[in-house]
Protein backbone atom coordinates (compact mmCIF):
# COMPACT_ATOMS: atom_id res chain seq x y z
CA UNK A 1 0.00 0.00 0.00
CA UNK A 2 1.36 3.33 -0.99
CA UNK A 3 0.62 6.18 1.32
CA UNK A 4 -0.92 9.15 -0.36
CA UNK A 5 1.55 11.67 0.84
CA UNK A 6 3.00 14.72 -0.87
CA UNK A 7 6.44 15.80 0.23
CA UNK A 8 8.21 18.85 -1.13
CA UNK A 9 11.84 19.33 -0.21
CA UNK A 10 13.65 22.67 -0.66
CA UNK A 11 11.85 23.56 -3.88
CA UNK A 12 13.21 26.41 -5.98
CA UNK A 13 11.83 27.80 -9.21
CA UNK A 14 12.52 30.98 -11.16
CA UNK A 15 10.83 32.04 -14.37
CA UNK A 16 12.74 32.36 -17.64
CA UNK A 17 13.28 36.10 -17.07
CA UNK A 18 14.92 35.36 -13.73
CA UNK A 19 11.99 36.34 -11.51
CA UNK A 20 12.09 33.97 -8.57
CA UNK A 21 8.67 32.42 -7.91
CA UNK A 22 9.41 29.72 -5.36
CA UNK A 23 12.46 30.03 -3.13
CA UNK A 24 13.03 27.05 -0.92
CA UNK A 25 9.69 25.57 0.05
CA UNK A 26 9.49 22.37 2.08
CA UNK A 27 6.48 20.58 3.55
CA UNK A 28 5.05 17.13 3.96
CA UNK A 29 1.34 16.42 3.65
CA UNK A 30 0.15 13.16 5.15
CA UNK A 31 -2.41 10.67 3.92
CA UNK A 32 -5.97 12.04 4.13
CA UNK A 33 -4.98 15.50 5.28
CA UNK A 34 -6.77 18.57 3.99
CA UNK A 35 -4.37 21.46 3.63
CA UNK A 36 -4.90 25.03 2.49
CA UNK A 37 -2.22 27.00 0.70
CA UNK A 38 -2.87 30.71 1.14
CA UNK A 39 -0.95 33.82 0.24
CA UNK A 40 -1.17 37.15 -1.53
CA UNK A 41 -1.41 37.47 -5.32
CA UNK A 42 1.87 36.46 -6.87
CA UNK A 43 3.09 34.75 -3.70
CA UNK A 44 3.95 31.64 -5.70
CA UNK A 45 0.91 29.45 -5.01
CA UNK A 46 0.16 28.59 -8.63
CA UNK A 47 3.80 27.87 -9.42
CA UNK A 48 3.93 25.55 -6.44
CA UNK A 49 0.79 23.72 -7.56
CA UNK A 50 2.19 23.21 -11.05
CA UNK A 51 5.06 21.30 -9.51
CA UNK A 52 2.80 18.89 -7.65
CA UNK A 53 1.78 17.02 -10.75
CA UNK A 54 4.93 17.52 -12.71
CA UNK A 55 3.88 20.22 -15.16
CA UNK A 56 6.93 22.18 -13.99
CA UNK A 57 10.12 20.40 -13.06
CA UNK A 58 11.92 21.67 -9.96
CA UNK A 59 15.05 23.66 -10.71
CA UNK A 60 16.30 22.70 -7.29
CA UNK A 61 14.85 20.39 -4.68
CA UNK A 62 12.47 17.46 -5.00
CA UNK A 63 8.78 16.65 -5.09
CA UNK A 64 7.63 13.28 -3.82
CA UNK A 65 4.15 11.93 -4.54
CA UNK A 66 3.24 8.71 -2.77
CA UNK A 67 6.37 6.55 -2.87
CA UNK A 68 7.87 8.04 -5.99
CA UNK A 69 10.10 11.01 -6.56
CA UNK A 70 8.85 13.12 -9.46
CA UNK A 71 10.97 12.80 -12.60
CA UNK A 72 10.38 12.36 -16.31
CA UNK A 73 10.05 8.60 -15.90
CA UNK A 74 7.56 8.69 -13.05
CA UNK A 75 5.45 11.46 -14.56
CA UNK A 76 2.58 9.26 -15.85
CA UNK A 77 2.24 7.58 -12.47
CA UNK A 78 2.28 10.87 -10.60
CA UNK A 79 -0.34 12.34 -12.89
CA UNK A 80 -2.59 9.40 -12.20
CA UNK A 81 -2.16 9.86 -8.46
CA UNK A 82 -2.63 13.61 -8.37
CA UNK A 83 -5.88 15.01 -9.74
CA UNK A 84 -5.58 18.67 -10.62
CA UNK A 85 -8.60 20.96 -10.76
CA UNK A 86 -7.79 24.21 -12.53
CA UNK A 87 -9.03 27.67 -11.68
CA UNK A 88 -10.96 28.22 -14.92
CA UNK A 89 -13.20 25.23 -15.73
CA UNK A 90 -13.23 26.34 -19.37
CA UNK A 91 -9.58 25.34 -19.53
CA UNK A 92 -10.32 21.96 -18.08
CA UNK A 93 -13.42 21.01 -20.04
CA UNK A 94 -12.17 20.81 -23.59
CA UNK A 95 -14.21 17.97 -25.05
CA UNK A 96 -17.49 18.38 -26.98
CA UNK A 97 -19.75 16.94 -24.28
CA UNK A 98 -19.54 16.47 -20.53
CA UNK A 99 -19.48 12.70 -20.94
CA UNK A 100 -16.56 12.84 -23.39
CA UNK A 101 -14.70 15.07 -21.02
CA UNK A 102 -15.05 12.82 -18.01
CA UNK A 103 -14.11 9.82 -20.14
CA UNK A 104 -11.00 11.56 -21.48
CA UNK A 105 -8.66 10.64 -18.63
CA UNK A 106 -9.77 7.01 -18.17
CA UNK A 107 -9.59 6.41 -21.94
CA UNK A 108 -6.04 7.75 -21.95
CA UNK A 109 -5.22 5.32 -19.17
CA UNK A 110 -6.14 2.60 -21.66
CA UNK A 111 -9.08 1.21 -19.65
CA UNK A 112 -11.65 -0.98 -21.41
CA UNK A 113 -14.78 0.80 -22.63
CA UNK A 114 -17.14 -0.75 -20.07
CA UNK A 115 -14.90 0.25 -17.19
CA UNK A 116 -14.66 3.78 -18.60
CA UNK A 117 -18.44 4.06 -18.82
CA UNK A 118 -18.82 2.81 -15.27
CA UNK A 119 -16.32 5.36 -14.04
CA UNK A 120 -18.01 8.19 -15.92
CA UNK A 121 -21.35 7.25 -14.38
CA UNK A 122 -19.85 7.03 -10.90
CA UNK A 123 -18.03 10.37 -11.19
CA UNK A 124 -21.17 12.11 -12.45
CA UNK A 125 -23.19 10.64 -9.60
CA UNK A 126 -20.58 11.70 -7.07
CA UNK A 127 -20.91 15.38 -8.04
CA UNK A 128 -24.66 15.07 -8.62
CA UNK A 129 -24.47 15.95 -12.32
CA UNK A 130 -25.94 12.93 -14.07
CA UNK A 131 -28.43 15.11 -15.91
CA UNK A 132 -25.61 17.08 -17.56
CA UNK A 133 -23.89 14.11 -19.23
CA UNK A 134 -24.78 14.91 -22.83
CA UNK A 135 -24.62 18.70 -22.59
CA UNK A 136 -21.79 20.65 -24.23
CA UNK A 137 -19.65 22.33 -21.52
CA UNK A 138 -20.13 25.84 -22.89
CA UNK A 139 -23.80 25.73 -21.99
CA UNK A 140 -23.32 24.95 -18.30
CA UNK A 141 -23.56 27.47 -15.48
CA UNK A 142 -20.49 28.35 -13.41
CA UNK A 143 -21.41 25.95 -10.61
CA UNK A 144 -22.20 23.12 -13.01
CA UNK A 145 -18.91 23.66 -14.85
CA UNK A 146 -17.03 23.44 -11.56
CA UNK A 147 -18.80 20.23 -10.55
CA UNK A 148 -18.11 18.64 -13.93
CA UNK A 149 -14.46 19.71 -13.83
CA UNK A 150 -14.12 17.91 -10.50
CA UNK A 151 -15.87 14.85 -11.94
CA UNK A 152 -13.44 14.84 -14.86
CA UNK A 153 -10.64 14.44 -12.34
CA UNK A 154 -12.49 11.99 -10.07
CA UNK A 155 -13.00 9.59 -12.98
CA UNK A 156 -9.24 8.94 -12.94
CA UNK A 157 -9.61 7.87 -9.30
CA UNK A 158 -6.76 9.99 -7.98
CA UNK A 159 -5.60 9.62 -4.41
CA UNK A 160 -4.66 13.25 -4.04
CA UNK A 161 -6.74 16.23 -5.16
CA UNK A 162 -5.07 19.55 -5.90
CA UNK A 163 -7.34 22.53 -6.44
CA UNK A 164 -6.58 26.07 -7.55
CA UNK A 165 -9.14 28.64 -6.37
CA UNK A 166 -12.13 26.30 -6.46
CA UNK A 167 -14.70 28.92 -5.44
CA UNK A 168 -13.95 31.83 -7.77
CA UNK A 169 -16.93 32.93 -9.82
CA UNK A 170 -19.49 30.91 -7.90
CA UNK A 171 -22.66 32.33 -6.39
CA UNK A 172 -23.07 31.72 -2.63
CA UNK A 173 -25.34 28.71 -3.03
CA UNK A 174 -23.06 27.04 -5.58
CA UNK A 175 -20.10 27.82 -3.34
CA UNK A 176 -21.81 26.17 -0.38
CA UNK A 177 -22.65 23.08 -2.45
CA UNK A 178 -19.03 22.86 -3.58
CA UNK A 179 -17.75 23.11 0.00
CA UNK A 180 -20.14 20.37 1.11
CA UNK A 181 -18.98 18.22 -1.80
CA UNK A 182 -15.31 18.73 -1.00
CA UNK A 183 -15.95 18.04 2.68
CA UNK A 184 -17.37 14.65 1.76
CA UNK A 185 -14.16 13.53 0.02
CA UNK A 186 -11.65 11.31 1.75
CA UNK A 187 -8.78 12.14 -0.59
CA UNK A 188 -5.68 13.95 0.51
CA UNK A 189 -6.66 17.50 -0.44
CA UNK A 190 -4.50 20.51 -1.24
CA UNK A 191 -6.43 23.71 -1.89
CA UNK A 192 -4.87 27.00 -2.96
CA UNK A 193 -7.32 29.82 -2.33
CA UNK A 194 -8.09 33.37 -1.23
CA UNK A 195 -11.40 32.21 0.20
CA UNK A 196 -10.37 31.94 3.84
CA UNK A 197 -13.88 31.09 4.99
CA UNK A 198 -13.63 28.00 2.83
CA UNK A 199 -10.34 27.18 4.49
CA UNK A 200 -12.04 27.41 7.86
CA UNK A 201 -14.63 24.87 6.72
CA UNK A 202 -12.40 22.40 4.91
CA UNK A 203 -8.81 22.53 6.06
CA UNK A 204 -7.36 21.68 9.42
CA UNK A 205 -3.93 22.83 8.42
CA UNK A 206 -2.83 25.95 6.56
CA UNK A 207 0.41 26.83 4.83
CA UNK A 208 0.98 30.55 4.37
CA UNK A 209 3.21 31.50 1.47
CA UNK A 210 4.72 34.93 1.02
CA UNK A 211 7.15 35.93 -1.71
CA UNK A 212 8.01 32.35 -2.58
CA UNK A 213 8.70 31.25 0.99
CA UNK A 214 6.68 29.56 3.71
CA UNK A 215 5.72 32.07 6.39
CA UNK A 216 3.83 29.63 8.54
CA UNK A 217 2.65 26.04 8.50
CA UNK A 218 0.29 25.47 11.43
CA UNK A 219 -3.27 24.45 12.35
CA UNK A 220 -5.76 26.68 10.54
CA UNK A 221 -7.38 28.27 13.60
CA UNK A 222 -4.05 29.12 15.11
CA UNK A 223 -3.01 30.93 11.93
CA UNK A 224 -6.25 32.86 11.64
CA UNK A 225 -5.86 34.18 15.17
CA UNK A 226 -2.34 35.43 14.50
CA UNK A 227 -3.22 38.94 13.34
CA UNK A 228 0.36 40.02 12.90
CA UNK A 229 1.20 37.07 10.65
CA UNK A 230 -1.91 37.62 8.55
CA UNK A 231 -1.07 41.28 8.04
CA UNK A 232 2.50 40.56 7.07
CA UNK A 233 1.33 38.04 4.46
CA UNK A 234 -1.31 40.42 2.97
CA UNK A 235 -4.16 38.35 4.38
CA UNK A 236 -7.14 38.99 6.58
CA UNK A 237 -8.92 36.77 9.08
CA UNK A 238 -12.00 35.07 7.60
CA UNK A 239 -15.11 37.21 7.92
CA UNK A 240 -16.62 34.75 10.35
CA UNK A 241 -13.71 35.23 12.72
CA UNK A 242 -13.88 39.01 12.57
CA UNK A 243 -16.00 40.96 15.00
CA UNK A 244 -19.72 41.18 14.48
CA UNK A 245 -20.61 44.14 12.21
CA UNK A 246 -23.65 44.90 14.37
CA UNK A 247 -22.41 44.86 17.95
CA UNK A 248 -18.62 44.66 17.37
CA UNK A 249 -18.44 41.68 19.69
CA UNK A 250 -15.93 39.08 18.59
CA UNK A 251 -17.71 36.02 17.30
CA UNK A 252 -17.16 32.69 19.01
CA UNK A 253 -15.06 30.04 17.27
CA UNK A 254 -17.01 28.19 14.56
CA UNK A 255 -17.10 24.83 16.28
CA UNK A 256 -19.00 26.03 19.31
CA UNK A 257 -22.72 25.80 18.51
CA UNK A 258 -23.65 26.69 22.08
CA UNK A 259 -21.91 30.05 21.87
CA UNK A 260 -23.50 30.75 18.47
CA UNK A 261 -26.85 30.32 20.05
CA UNK A 262 -26.38 33.30 22.28
CA UNK A 263 -25.35 35.61 19.50
CA UNK A 264 -28.48 36.54 17.61
CA UNK A 265 -29.49 39.61 15.67
CA UNK A 266 -33.14 39.24 14.92
CA UNK A 267 -33.40 43.01 14.84
CA UNK A 268 -30.84 43.70 12.13
CA UNK A 269 -33.02 46.51 10.79
CA UNK A 270 -32.32 48.58 13.87
CA UNK A 271 -28.91 47.51 15.02
CA UNK A 272 -28.73 49.85 18.00
CA UNK A 273 -31.79 48.58 19.74
CA UNK A 274 -29.99 45.46 20.93
CA UNK A 275 -27.75 46.12 23.89
Amino acid at each position, binding site marked *: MSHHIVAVQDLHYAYADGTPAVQGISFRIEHGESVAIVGANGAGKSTLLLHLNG*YLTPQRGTVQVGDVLLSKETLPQARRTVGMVFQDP*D*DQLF*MPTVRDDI*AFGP*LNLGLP*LDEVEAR*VAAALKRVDAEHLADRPPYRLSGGEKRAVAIASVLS*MQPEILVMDEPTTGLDPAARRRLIDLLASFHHTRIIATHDLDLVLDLCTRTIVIHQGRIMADRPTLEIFHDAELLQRSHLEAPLRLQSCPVCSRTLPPPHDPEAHHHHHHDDLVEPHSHD
Partner: protein
Amino acid sequence: MAKIESAFFDIGTLDRLASRDNWLSRLDPRAKVVTTLLFVVMVVSSGKYEVSALLPFFLFPFALIAVADLPLDYLCKKLLIAAPFAFFVGVFNPFFDSAPQLQLHGWAISGGWLSFASIMLRFTLTVSAALILIATTSFTGVCLALEKLGAPRVFVLQLLFLYRYLFVLIDEGSRLHRAQTLRSFNGKGRGLKVLGSLLGQLLLRTLDRAQRIHMAMLCRGFDGEVRMTRRLHIGIREVVFVGGWGATFLLFRTCNLPQTLGLLVERLMR
Protein backbone atom coordinates in the same frame (compact mmCIF):
# COMPACT_ATOMS: atom_id res chain seq x y z
CA MET B 1 -20.85 42.73 -34.62
CA ALA B 2 -22.47 40.41 -32.12
CA LYS B 3 -25.43 39.93 -34.45
CA ILE B 4 -23.44 38.49 -37.34
CA GLU B 5 -21.61 36.20 -34.95
CA SER B 6 -24.66 34.83 -33.25
CA ALA B 7 -26.43 34.30 -36.57
CA PHE B 8 -23.53 32.59 -38.23
CA PHE B 9 -22.14 30.52 -35.39
CA ASP B 10 -25.47 29.35 -34.14
CA ILE B 11 -24.16 25.82 -33.87
CA GLY B 12 -26.28 25.38 -30.78
CA THR B 13 -29.46 24.92 -32.78
CA LEU B 14 -27.81 22.48 -35.18
CA ASP B 15 -26.57 20.54 -32.17
CA ARG B 16 -30.00 20.42 -30.61
CA LEU B 17 -31.41 19.10 -33.88
CA ALA B 18 -28.69 16.46 -34.05
CA SER B 19 -29.41 15.22 -30.55
CA ARG B 20 -32.99 14.28 -31.49
CA ASP B 21 -33.56 10.62 -32.01
CA ASN B 22 -34.63 9.48 -35.46
CA TRP B 23 -33.71 6.94 -38.10
CA LEU B 24 -31.18 9.28 -39.67
CA SER B 25 -29.43 10.32 -36.46
CA ARG B 26 -28.99 6.67 -35.46
CA LEU B 27 -27.13 5.94 -38.70
CA ASP B 28 -23.36 5.60 -38.36
CA PRO B 29 -21.82 9.06 -38.92
CA ARG B 30 -19.34 7.60 -41.41
CA ALA B 31 -22.17 6.57 -43.75
CA LYS B 32 -23.60 10.08 -43.70
CA VAL B 33 -20.24 11.75 -44.22
CA VAL B 34 -19.36 9.53 -47.17
CA THR B 35 -22.77 9.99 -48.79
CA THR B 36 -22.64 13.76 -48.39
CA LEU B 37 -19.14 13.79 -49.83
CA LEU B 38 -20.29 11.78 -52.86
CA PHE B 39 -23.19 14.16 -53.29
CA VAL B 40 -20.98 17.24 -53.20
CA VAL B 41 -18.49 15.76 -55.68
CA MET B 42 -21.25 14.78 -58.11
CA VAL B 43 -22.92 18.20 -57.94
CA VAL B 44 -19.74 20.23 -58.19
CA SER B 45 -18.30 18.21 -61.06
CA SER B 46 -21.29 18.89 -63.33
CA GLY B 47 -20.76 20.98 -66.47
CA LYS B 48 -20.38 24.75 -66.30
CA TYR B 49 -23.74 25.54 -68.01
CA GLU B 50 -25.65 22.69 -66.42
CA VAL B 51 -28.95 23.80 -64.91
CA SER B 52 -31.63 21.26 -65.69
CA ALA B 53 -29.44 18.26 -64.90
CA LEU B 54 -28.87 19.61 -61.36
CA LEU B 55 -32.56 19.74 -60.49
CA PRO B 56 -32.99 16.02 -59.69
CA PHE B 57 -30.26 16.34 -57.03
CA PHE B 58 -32.73 18.26 -54.86
CA LEU B 59 -34.23 14.90 -54.05
CA PHE B 60 -31.40 14.22 -51.59
CA PRO B 61 -31.75 17.25 -49.28
CA PHE B 62 -35.53 17.14 -49.38
CA ALA B 63 -35.65 13.43 -48.60
CA LEU B 64 -33.35 13.89 -45.60
CA ILE B 65 -35.27 16.94 -44.36
CA ALA B 66 -38.46 14.90 -44.53
CA VAL B 67 -37.02 11.87 -42.74
CA ALA B 68 -35.27 13.85 -39.99
CA ASP B 69 -38.11 16.38 -39.74
CA LEU B 70 -35.75 19.35 -39.92
CA PRO B 71 -37.18 22.88 -39.81
CA LEU B 72 -37.09 24.08 -43.43
CA ASP B 73 -37.27 27.79 -42.59
CA TYR B 74 -34.27 27.50 -40.27
CA LEU B 75 -32.14 25.87 -43.00
CA CYS B 76 -33.26 28.47 -45.55
CA LYS B 77 -32.21 31.26 -43.20
CA LYS B 78 -28.75 29.71 -42.84
CA LEU B 79 -28.51 29.42 -46.63
CA LEU B 80 -29.44 33.08 -47.05
CA ILE B 81 -26.71 34.17 -44.64
CA ALA B 82 -24.08 32.38 -46.72
CA ALA B 83 -25.68 33.23 -50.08
CA PRO B 84 -23.83 36.53 -50.73
CA PHE B 85 -20.54 34.64 -51.07
CA ALA B 86 -21.86 32.51 -53.93
CA PHE B 87 -23.77 35.44 -55.39
CA PHE B 88 -20.66 37.56 -55.80
CA VAL B 89 -18.71 34.66 -57.25
CA GLY B 90 -21.18 34.35 -60.11
CA VAL B 91 -22.75 37.79 -60.49
CA PHE B 92 -20.32 39.05 -63.15
CA ASN B 93 -20.68 36.01 -65.40
CA PRO B 94 -23.63 37.49 -67.36
CA PHE B 95 -21.45 40.49 -68.29
CA PHE B 96 -18.38 38.58 -69.40
CA ASP B 97 -20.06 35.66 -71.12
CA SER B 98 -22.83 37.12 -73.25
CA ALA B 99 -22.81 34.60 -76.09
CA PRO B 100 -26.34 33.13 -76.44
CA GLN B 101 -26.45 29.50 -75.40
CA LEU B 102 -30.13 28.75 -75.23
CA GLN B 103 -33.32 29.78 -77.04
CA LEU B 104 -36.39 29.79 -74.86
CA HIS B 105 -39.65 30.96 -76.44
CA GLY B 106 -37.70 33.32 -78.63
CA TRP B 107 -35.60 34.68 -75.74
CA ALA B 108 -31.88 34.21 -76.13
CA ILE B 109 -30.26 33.27 -72.82
CA SER B 110 -26.55 33.97 -72.62
CA GLY B 111 -23.99 31.53 -71.26
CA GLY B 112 -23.28 33.94 -68.42
CA TRP B 113 -26.79 33.75 -67.03
CA LEU B 114 -26.76 29.98 -67.34
CA SER B 115 -23.51 29.61 -65.46
CA PHE B 116 -24.70 32.09 -62.83
CA ALA B 117 -27.84 30.05 -62.28
CA SER B 118 -25.73 26.91 -62.18
CA ILE B 119 -23.46 28.40 -59.49
CA MET B 120 -26.42 29.41 -57.34
CA LEU B 121 -27.99 25.96 -57.72
CA ARG B 122 -24.77 24.22 -56.79
CA PHE B 123 -24.33 26.50 -53.82
CA THR B 124 -27.84 25.73 -52.57
CA LEU B 125 -27.37 22.00 -53.02
CA THR B 126 -23.94 21.63 -51.43
CA VAL B 127 -24.40 24.03 -48.51
CA SER B 128 -27.78 22.60 -47.60
CA ALA B 129 -26.28 19.10 -47.74
CA ALA B 130 -23.53 20.19 -45.33
CA LEU B 131 -26.03 21.82 -42.98
CA ILE B 132 -28.22 18.73 -43.03
CA LEU B 133 -25.18 16.55 -42.34
CA ILE B 134 -24.39 18.51 -39.18
CA ALA B 135 -28.04 18.74 -38.16
CA THR B 136 -28.38 14.96 -38.29
CA THR B 137 -24.90 13.91 -37.14
CA SER B 138 -23.64 16.74 -34.86
CA PHE B 139 -20.32 18.41 -35.38
CA THR B 140 -18.60 15.97 -33.05
CA GLY B 141 -20.03 13.03 -34.95
CA VAL B 142 -18.67 14.43 -38.20
CA CYS B 143 -15.20 14.90 -36.65
CA LEU B 144 -15.27 11.39 -35.25
CA ALA B 145 -16.27 9.96 -38.64
CA LEU B 146 -13.50 11.90 -40.38
CA GLU B 147 -10.95 10.48 -37.96
CA LYS B 148 -12.20 6.94 -38.42
CA LEU B 149 -12.14 7.43 -42.19
CA GLY B 150 -8.46 8.26 -42.00
CA ALA B 151 -8.34 12.06 -41.92
CA PRO B 152 -5.15 13.33 -40.25
CA ARG B 153 -5.54 13.33 -36.48
CA VAL B 154 -4.14 16.84 -36.08
CA PHE B 155 -6.75 18.15 -38.46
CA VAL B 156 -9.60 16.45 -36.61
CA LEU B 157 -8.27 17.69 -33.28
CA GLN B 158 -8.18 21.24 -34.61
CA LEU B 159 -11.79 20.96 -35.75
CA LEU B 160 -12.92 19.64 -32.38
CA PHE B 161 -11.16 22.44 -30.52
CA LEU B 162 -12.39 25.06 -32.95
CA TYR B 163 -15.89 23.91 -32.16
CA ARG B 164 -15.34 23.83 -28.41
CA TYR B 165 -13.57 27.16 -28.06
CA LEU B 166 -15.34 29.22 -30.70
CA PHE B 167 -17.76 30.43 -28.06
CA VAL B 168 -15.05 31.19 -25.55
CA LEU B 169 -13.15 33.14 -28.21
CA ILE B 170 -16.23 35.08 -29.31
CA ASP B 171 -16.96 35.81 -25.67
CA GLU B 172 -13.47 37.11 -25.07
CA GLY B 173 -13.54 39.13 -28.29
CA SER B 174 -16.86 40.74 -27.49
CA ARG B 175 -15.69 41.57 -23.95
CA LEU B 176 -12.72 43.42 -25.43
CA HIS B 177 -15.00 45.11 -27.94
CA ARG B 178 -17.42 46.15 -25.20
CA ALA B 179 -14.63 47.56 -23.06
CA GLN B 180 -13.40 49.58 -26.04
CA THR B 181 -16.85 50.84 -26.99
CA LEU B 182 -17.62 51.99 -23.46
CA ARG B 183 -14.55 54.17 -23.35
CA SER B 184 -14.48 55.66 -26.85
CA PHE B 185 -16.30 58.90 -27.54
CA ASN B 186 -17.01 60.88 -30.71
CA GLY B 187 -15.32 58.33 -32.92
CA LYS B 188 -12.10 58.66 -30.95
CA GLY B 189 -10.50 55.44 -29.82
CA ARG B 190 -11.81 53.42 -32.73
CA GLY B 191 -8.92 53.71 -35.19
CA LEU B 192 -6.87 50.96 -36.77
CA LYS B 193 -4.18 51.44 -34.15
CA VAL B 194 -6.57 50.55 -31.35
CA LEU B 195 -7.94 47.64 -33.35
CA GLY B 196 -4.39 46.39 -33.80
CA SER B 197 -3.65 46.29 -30.10
CA LEU B 198 -7.08 44.80 -29.46
CA LEU B 199 -6.36 41.92 -31.81
CA GLY B 200 -2.91 41.55 -30.28
CA GLN B 201 -4.53 41.27 -26.85
CA LEU B 202 -6.89 38.63 -28.15
CA LEU B 203 -4.01 36.66 -29.63
CA LEU B 204 -2.03 36.79 -26.37
CA ARG B 205 -5.03 35.72 -24.33
CA THR B 206 -5.68 32.90 -26.76
CA LEU B 207 -2.08 31.70 -26.52
CA ASP B 208 -2.30 31.79 -22.73
CA ARG B 209 -5.47 29.80 -22.77
CA ALA B 210 -4.06 27.30 -25.24
CA GLN B 211 -1.19 26.72 -22.85
CA ARG B 212 -3.54 26.18 -19.92
CA ILE B 213 -5.69 23.78 -21.93
CA HIS B 214 -2.63 21.83 -22.97
CA MET B 215 -1.62 21.64 -19.33
CA ALA B 216 -5.06 20.31 -18.39
CA MET B 217 -4.83 17.72 -21.15
CA LEU B 218 -1.39 16.56 -20.04
CA CYS B 219 -2.64 16.23 -16.48
CA ARG B 220 -5.16 13.70 -17.70
CA GLY B 221 -2.74 11.62 -19.70
CA PHE B 222 -3.10 13.11 -23.20
CA ASP B 223 -0.70 11.43 -25.60
CA GLY B 224 -1.70 12.89 -28.96
CA GLU B 225 -4.71 10.73 -29.58
CA VAL B 226 -8.25 11.77 -28.74
CA ARG B 227 -10.39 8.84 -27.72
CA MET B 228 -14.13 8.82 -27.29
CA THR B 229 -16.56 6.31 -25.88
CA ARG B 230 -18.99 6.37 -28.78
CA ARG B 231 -19.39 2.94 -30.33
CA LEU B 232 -19.61 2.97 -34.10
CA HIS B 233 -21.14 0.23 -36.13
CA ILE B 234 -21.48 -0.29 -39.87
CA GLY B 235 -24.46 -2.51 -40.52
CA ILE B 236 -26.74 -3.37 -43.37
CA ARG B 237 -28.61 -0.08 -43.03
CA GLU B 238 -25.43 1.93 -43.54
CA VAL B 239 -24.42 -0.08 -46.60
CA VAL B 240 -27.88 0.35 -48.15
CA PHE B 241 -27.87 4.08 -47.37
CA VAL B 242 -24.50 4.75 -48.98
CA GLY B 243 -25.03 2.32 -51.88
CA GLY B 244 -28.56 3.48 -52.65
CA TRP B 245 -27.76 7.17 -52.66
CA GLY B 246 -24.46 6.59 -54.49
CA ALA B 247 -26.25 4.79 -57.32
CA THR B 248 -28.93 7.49 -57.44
CA PHE B 249 -26.33 10.27 -57.66
CA LEU B 250 -24.54 8.40 -60.43
CA LEU B 251 -27.80 8.10 -62.35
CA PHE B 252 -28.54 11.84 -61.91
CA ARG B 253 -25.01 12.68 -62.96
CA THR B 254 -24.72 10.50 -66.06
CA CYS B 255 -28.11 11.06 -67.67
CA ASN B 256 -29.98 14.32 -67.75
CA LEU B 257 -33.29 13.14 -66.36
CA PRO B 258 -35.35 16.32 -66.98
CA GLN B 259 -34.15 16.34 -70.61
CA THR B 260 -34.98 12.67 -71.09
CA LEU B 261 -38.36 13.25 -69.54
CA GLY B 262 -38.97 16.23 -71.82
CA LEU B 263 -38.05 14.27 -74.94
CA LEU B 264 -40.31 11.45 -73.83
CA VAL B 265 -43.24 13.81 -73.33
CA GLU B 266 -42.52 15.44 -76.68
CA ARG B 267 -42.59 12.08 -78.43
CA LEU B 268 -45.83 11.12 -76.74
CA MET B 269 -47.44 14.41 -77.74
CA ARG B 270 -46.67 13.83 -81.39
